């Protein structure tokens, strides 16, 4: 590596009682990168983000953020971070604008400077017309946007976003993506978690998929799809279980891998169209049939399983 990583975690561990939420995690994030944590509920994403944000102590391993150790220099690190936590921590009693203003003061900014930045940031997330409303009166999505605006008041080098767009409508989501993209272009490093695969594909240069506190895959979205899935997926639905069962033997002969679900069969294949042609010429008659490109979601489900984990 030519550059020193902004985040360097080696063997990072977080425990809650006997339970290990983050289990010897190794992660490096380079300056200017947009890096994503994906994983099912309870995978340990938030626990990891909180340790990086220096608001949660690690129970093992080494961690360096911006070249410093959170255990001893948390305050100095946090001064240069922007944090969007999974659960909002806004001041409901204060107005939208006052929330940003007071946050600037926490960072030791002058009142005049904070005012200037607050107006700019509220414009940035399109909340200018709500600036004098109490946060109490905002919708969930507006609060989320305010949290994002607030996190940028110190012009952070590294922005940590834990599910930044959960609960946003599509317009707001695209707005946030566009803003994050701009932020990245201006040189900031982004680390985010998300449950939206399209978000990860859009925003992340590189990501890891976590499960049970460990990393199960790492790479660019494209590389992950290439490595863990086929180019195409054929989805076939049948009239009933009987028909589906009858078709399985024939389906064994196409594609690289099949996945049988209660309501459909997925065929992972390098060339979906060719397979469909072969299948429809002789063979099973599915009720519906769809050929599509593999997505990150296929990788995610393949690696972390389809069932809900306890």
């Amino acid at each position, binding site marked *: 590596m030519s550059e020193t990583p902004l985040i360097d975690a080696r063997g990072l561990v977080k425990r809650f009682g006997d339970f290990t939420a983050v289990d010897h995690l190794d992660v490096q994030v380079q300056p200017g990168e947009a890096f994503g944590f994906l994983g099912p509920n309870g995978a340990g994403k938030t626990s990891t983000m909180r340790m990086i944000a220096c608001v949660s102590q690690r129970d093992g391993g080494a961690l360096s953020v911006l070249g410093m150790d959170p255990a001893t220099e948390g305050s100095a690190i946090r001064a240069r971070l922007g944090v969007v*936590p999974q659960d909002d921590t806004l001041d409901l009693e204060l107005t939208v604008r006052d929330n940003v203003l007071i946050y600037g003061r926490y*960072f030791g900014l002058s009142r005049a400077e904070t005012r200037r930045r607050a107006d700019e940031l509220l414009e940035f997330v399109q909340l200018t017309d709500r600036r004098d409303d109490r946060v109490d009166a905002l919708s969930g999505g507006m609060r989320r946007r305010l949290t994002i605006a607030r996190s940028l008041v110190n012009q952070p080098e590294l922005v940590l976003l834990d599910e930044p767009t959960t609960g946003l409508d599509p317009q707001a989501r695209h707005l946030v993506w566009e803003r994050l993209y701009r932020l990245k272009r201006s040189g900031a490093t982004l680390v985010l978690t998300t449950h939206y695969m399209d978000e990860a594909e859009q925003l992340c240069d590189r990501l890891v998929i976590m499960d049970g506190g460990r990393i199960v895959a790492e790479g660019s979205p494209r590389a992950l799809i290439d490595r863990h899935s086929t180019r195409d997926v054929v989805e076939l639905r049948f009239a009933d279980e009987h028909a589906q069962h009858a078709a399985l033997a024939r389906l064994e002969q196409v594609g690289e891998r099949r996945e049988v679900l209660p309501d459909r069969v997925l065929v992972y294949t390098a060339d979906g169209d060719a397979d469909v042609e072969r299948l429809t010429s002789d063979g099973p008659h599915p009720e519906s049939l769809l050929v599509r490109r593999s997505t990150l979601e296929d990788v995610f489900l393949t690696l972390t399983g389809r069932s809900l984990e306890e």
Partner: protein
Amino acid sequence: MSAPLALRVVEHEAQVFKRFWRGTLFGYVLNPLLYLAALGFGLGSLITENQGEVAGLPYVEFVAPGLMAAAAMQAAAADSLWPVMAGMKWIRWYHGMVATPLRPRDVYTGSVAWTAMRAGLGATVFLVVAALLGAIPSAWGVLAIPSAALTAAGFAAMLAAYAATQEVDLRFPLIMRLGILPLFLVSGTFFPIDQLPGWLQVCAWASPLWHGVELCRASTTGMLEAVDLAHLAFLVGFLWVGWLWGIRSFDARLTA
């Protein structure tokens, strides 16, 4: 570094306070008016008729500084239990604070300092109202303001430290009823503690409110003596112990 960082938390509290200061101020004025009218003058006239002075003072002059210190304690208690739970769990603005250069101990120290400042403001209003009603014979009475604020700081430090260890507010009403209220009654607020049975007198010595009451009373009556340094030392010690606990409990809670 610690003091300036905690000041940023004070600034936050002041910002919130700006939104409802009118109601608070109204309460600050009403509280001494009601208490002094009922106890100082109502009950006081009975006492004067039957017994004359209490501890060498007209009753209203005796009870006013007691009520002043007790009001500071009660305000501090109310400000340090539920609001801390709200900051930690219900609304979670503390978590927003500790994502900045502020540390848990700054959040704690700033909150306690603000509670003391508010209590000081309440004590100032109390003193003015009481003086207008003729219950403050000495100009040394201004020293009762920092005395009340220090009493409040001690209780705020202790109770906020405790609140940070709790997951729910189940025990808070008990603390108010079985802790704060009894202290209010037996800490020399309404009558000298030598009227109490022996064992309760010993309890009163251990009560931080008693030391606060004594300090306030010595100030408003202008009878400060060497022993008041001991009261001062006790209150400082009480605050210090609470603070040592609080920086730990806030740290444990906010960095889990």
